[in-house]
């Protein structure tokens, strides 16, 4: 008996709510933080899933946006906590500790950078696209390392988590709530977008660019817009991730992180609504459980990944529902 995907999706979302609530009752704040981490990684991967799952764009540089979101938060909060202003010569901008403001900055920044990277990268395709996005990731990574003003290699620490009007973000369950709501909104956006004319055309452009051109649409434009939306969501996740750890470092820009975001989607199911969420939960659970058993847990992660690629195309959702993932 195959599971219906809708039921599976609902169960996952409910589980994601139930675990931290249960942990709240049993007073295990660490579990709440762990689930929050999964939620934020899921959000980042939902963003990537728009470009990769629907649009077929294998971006090996999405850490750029994750890192930009993180550094937007880090830099703004750094200036706020040191009571200094950012000096741009002609004008200066004060820092802030207000999350929504930070998010707006992060999202705007990511949209601009995604537009730029997209314009350049989408001139290429296939392996070249994978490589050029990887190279952009490395570019930001090395830039962050050499940017001594904001901690260079060591990164930036933020003493107190930023504020959200009306909530106490230091209480784990409240911060979880913020992240969960944002994830739910992103999932809603993904779902609507996937079925809207834009998603339908983008999905077709992944499968056959020639057909899309023949009906009078431009695949490049569709993919560019998808890449920007995708980068924005991953960037928002970066800002949340930085706030969860109260720390940003160049590792948020690392190519391993870009790889892990792809891995999350593959584990769950490419192009499927809840693929990134399931992937993130499995990933964080493995990291926690296997990481507790052996320091060499990455070996097992590698073996699991290899088995999924070789034997279980479609990931967890594919296994449970019998539906294959999108072919990228």
């Amino acid at each position, binding site marked *: 008996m195959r599971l219906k995907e809708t039921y599976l999706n609902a169960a996952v979302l409910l589980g994601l709510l139930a675990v931290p609530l249960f942990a709240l009752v049993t007073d295990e704040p660490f579990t709440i933080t762990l689930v929050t981490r999964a939620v934020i990684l899921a959000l980042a991967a939902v963003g990537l899933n728009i470009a990769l799952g629907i649009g077929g764009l294998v971006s090996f540089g999405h850490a750029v946006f994750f890192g930009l979101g993180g550094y937007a938060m880090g830099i703004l909060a750094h200036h706020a906590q040191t009571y200094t202003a950012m000096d741009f010569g002609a004008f200066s901008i004060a820092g802030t500790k207000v999350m929504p403001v930070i998010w707006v900055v992060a999202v705007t920044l990511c949209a601009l950078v995604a537009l730029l990277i997209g314009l350049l990268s989408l001139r290429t395709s296939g392996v070249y696209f994978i490589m050029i996005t990887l190279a952009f990731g490395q570019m930001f990574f090395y830039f962050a390392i050499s940017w001594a003003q904001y901690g260079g290699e060591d990164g930036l620490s933020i003493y107190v988590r930023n504020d959200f009007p009306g909530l106490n973000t230091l209480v784990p369950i409240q911060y979880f709530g913020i992240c969960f709501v944002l994830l739910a909104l992103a999932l809603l956006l993904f779902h*609507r977008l996937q079925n*809207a004319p834009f998603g*339908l*055309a983008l999905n077709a452009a992944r499968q056959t660019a020639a*057909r*899309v*051109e*023949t009906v*009078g649409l431009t695949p490049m434009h569709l993919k560019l817009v998808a890449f920007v939306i995708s980068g924005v969501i991953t960037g928002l996740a970066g800002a949340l991730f930085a706030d969860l750890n109260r720390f940003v470092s160049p590792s948020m820009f690392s190519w391993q992180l870009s790889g892990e975001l792809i891995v999350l989607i593959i584990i769950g199911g490419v192009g499927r609504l809840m693929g990134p969420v399931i992937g993130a939960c499995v990933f964080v659970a493995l990291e926690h459980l296997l990481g507790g058993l052996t320091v060499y847990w990455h070996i097992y992660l590698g073996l699991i990944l290899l088995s999924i690629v070789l034997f279980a195309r479609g990931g967890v959702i594919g296994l449970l529902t019998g539906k294959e993932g999108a072919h990228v």
Partner: protein
Amino acid sequence: MSDPVLDISNLSKSFGALRATDDVSLTLMPGEIHAIIGPNGAGKSTLIKQICGNLRSDAGRVHLMGRDVSSFSTQARANAGLARTFQISELAMEDSVLENVVLGAIGAEARPWRFWRKALDTPALVERADAALDRVGLQGARDVICANLSHGQRRQLEVAVALTLAPKAFVMDEPMAGLGAEGSKTLTGFLDSLRDEAPILLVEHDMDAVFALADRISVLVYGKIIATGTVDDIRSSAVVRDAYLGEEA
């Protein structure tokens, strides 16, 4: 005499030393089916790509409804009213039949920038798509995933997507390819009824279909048009018989 819908003048394209098309000129008049025939390697595929904007021409111009579209991209030519079908089906194989036709409707209405409302719940798109499916007789397979369609159904779907564009002219690349006798006959009947809507430039190997449908035939050999005329002209032409038909007779 009215103006041609599609006016192709002096198109040429070379790949290195090979002249794939050489000074090709032809017209497509309102209400007509103009067939292009020729042996394999005659340059038919190259010509279609040049007409539809997939390949930049070395020389020559393409006019659609009197408008010079020579510098237009494929997309712009589609928007200007040129609908193409592919010899080897170019369809979104993971998507349903309806989704493939709705894609045509999205293109026809130039509305890809809708991010919220479901495409399949948008009446304007679905009505246009359903109308096209009805006309080619694919309504029964509306929700079938494209990869599961039979070869013949894919050919029908190709035509349905082109129909959604409500084009000024069709360019069809071997629509009969791979169809059985029965399928060819059905499609021949359908194309016959389509000519009043928009004229068809038909590249086809199936001679029965060509002789049944074509108002005019152009024969392309080694990149050059060696003859243009009615079915009877072409049948009785010695030049054509020597260059082409003779091989088969």
